[in-house]
């Protein structure tokens, strides 16, 4: 039933996301060449060169293979950083909204303080403190993104707390933890899912931005952001180096955002909360 309501674009977007996940998981087998193999004699070949359909970079590495292998880090990072951010953010939001009082005041001010930093700056600071590497990149992204969910959840918990089904459960002697988890959590879930979908796109772009600024994962691991950053100096002579990864990022993020929008229309048609995040 619901499926028929999806426009054709949704199928394309879903396909793009599926390809992204597939390539992210199996990239190392799919890449036609070793993405790290260098050949200084065949550097900066333009696209459609024999053996290199998308050309080579400044060290003679195959751009197509690097684009394929480059899906792995964004996939891992977004698939771990977003759920971890949700875990922390939702927990803090639940506690803050449900317990209220001084705990709420402190937690919310801390959240506000956190939100007052631009994400990218926090992420930079964390990568700088922790050092490079994919685990630290994920920590940095979680550290800079958890606070979004706190406000989202806490606002809804505040209003749910006084609703009839909660107050009656409380009168029946149901423990606070159970009320929070069994009764309140399911009600806030839809909006969290909506924001989370859009956050996947944001995290992918943030990861690319960090790699772009030279604060990404190991250089041994190709990522789209790092490719873009390395290709930047050659922008007027070898346009494909910075252009192609940018197009790939845009397409993937577009598909994710598109699906997120559809999800929002389905779950919560009148909400504009997703765009605030």
């Amino acid at each position, binding site marked *: 039933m619901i499926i028929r309501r999806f426009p054709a674009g949704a199928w394309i977007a879903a396909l793009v996301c599926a390809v992204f996940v597939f390539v992210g998981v199996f990239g190392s087998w799919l890449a036609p060449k070793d993405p790290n193999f260098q050949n200084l004699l065949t550097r900066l070949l333009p696209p459609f060169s024999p053996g290199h359909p998308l050309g080579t970079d400044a060290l003679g590495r195959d751009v197509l293979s690097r684009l394929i292998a480059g899906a792995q880090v964004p996939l891992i990072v977004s698939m771990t950083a977003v759920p971890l951010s949700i875990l922390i953010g939702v927990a803090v939001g639940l506690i803050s909204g449900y317990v209220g009082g001084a705990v709420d005041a402190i937690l919310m*001010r801390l959240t506000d303080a956190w939100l*007052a*930093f631009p994400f990218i*700056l926090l992420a930079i600071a964390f990568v700088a403190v922790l050092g490079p590497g994919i685990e630290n990149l994920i920590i940095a992204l979680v550290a800079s993104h958890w606070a979004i969910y706190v406000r989202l959840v806490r606002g809804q918990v505040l209003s749910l707390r006084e609703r009839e089904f909660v107050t009656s459960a409380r009168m029946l002697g149901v423990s606070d933890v159970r009320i929070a988890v069994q009764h309140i959590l399911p009600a806030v879930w839809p909006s969290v899912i909506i924001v989370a979908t859009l956050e996947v*796109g944001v995290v992918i772009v943030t990861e690319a931005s960090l790699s772009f600024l030279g604060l990404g994962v190991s250089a041994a691991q190709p990522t789209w952001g790092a490719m873009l950053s390395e290709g930047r100096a050659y922008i007027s002579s070898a346009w494909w180096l910075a252009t192609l990864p*940018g197009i790939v*990022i*845009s397409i993937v993020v577009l598909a994710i955002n598109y699906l997120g929008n559809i999800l929002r229309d389905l779950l919560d048609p009148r909400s504009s909360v997703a765009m605030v995040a």
Partner: protein
Amino acid sequence: MLKLILYRFGQAVVVLLFVSAIVFFLIRLTPGDPVDIFLGEQNVSPEQRQAYRRALGLDQSIFVQYLNFLWNAVQGDLGQSIYERASVSSLVFNAFLATAELAVVGVLIAVAMGVPAALVAAMNHNRLSDRFLSAGALLGFSIPTFWLGIILILGLSVHLGLFPTGGRIGGDVALQKITGFVILDSILTGNLRALGSGLLHIALPALTIAVALAASVMQVLRGSLIAVKEEEFIYALRSRGLTQDVIYRHMLRNAAPPTVIILGVKLGGLLGGAIITESVFSWPGLGRLIIDAIRARDYPLVQGGVLLMAMAFVIVSLITDIIHILLDPRIRDGREGK
């Protein structure tokens, strides 16, 4: 309502206190030493090195340093930059002006693009033009900003030579400084050359940040306009035979609050420096200042910059909240707005 605003103000102070603590300890946890960095490859004896540390107050315990910093900051003294040899407040303030100018122009462009698009889309709900505009907005929202900036430079600056590649104003253009805003100053002094140069310089970076912003404006406003369109009072206006212009104005006023909030939140973020846009376009703003300061481990400058950035964010949120309260009477009496 005054009580609510005062309450919010109190909250803001607490938030800034937290921010100051986070930034202070975070930057000191970061490996790297400001003294080493500014001495560079020069040959300096350990005694000299120690003397610099002492001069910068870095030999004291970290908590003493923090209390000193707080005490001075409360008195309005953010200290001296280690690397720049100027007061942090003057450096940070000048950078903030550049950032604010960029943010304001960016928001104006975003509104100029987003509002008409939203109107057209909402009036043609679910028709081809709506689909087209919505898709465009989604695309605008998805393109990484730094990449867009590079592509704009490549196309419009390097290949077509239409715009300069970076900076705020042509180096050969003299401009008397009044407010610190290039565009405003050139209008105030009637300096056409400076105005032309300033507008050309700000065009691409402002466009870069405006694209994603316009997409947000368009999506949110479109949603509220569609909802408002169906409301009774609009039918009533229409039946009274009012012109389309007047009806649009009524619709926009009623659909505005969510868009205003979003613009407020985004503007708050932008005032903190569109870090990547600023670095791509060599825009001497707050974001770039802070990034450079982090690289140089210029502790006082990082602290001052982040504090001002957070202050801008908090103040803009506060103003947004107040506007929100004024626009939406329902909140005025209830619990604090979200």
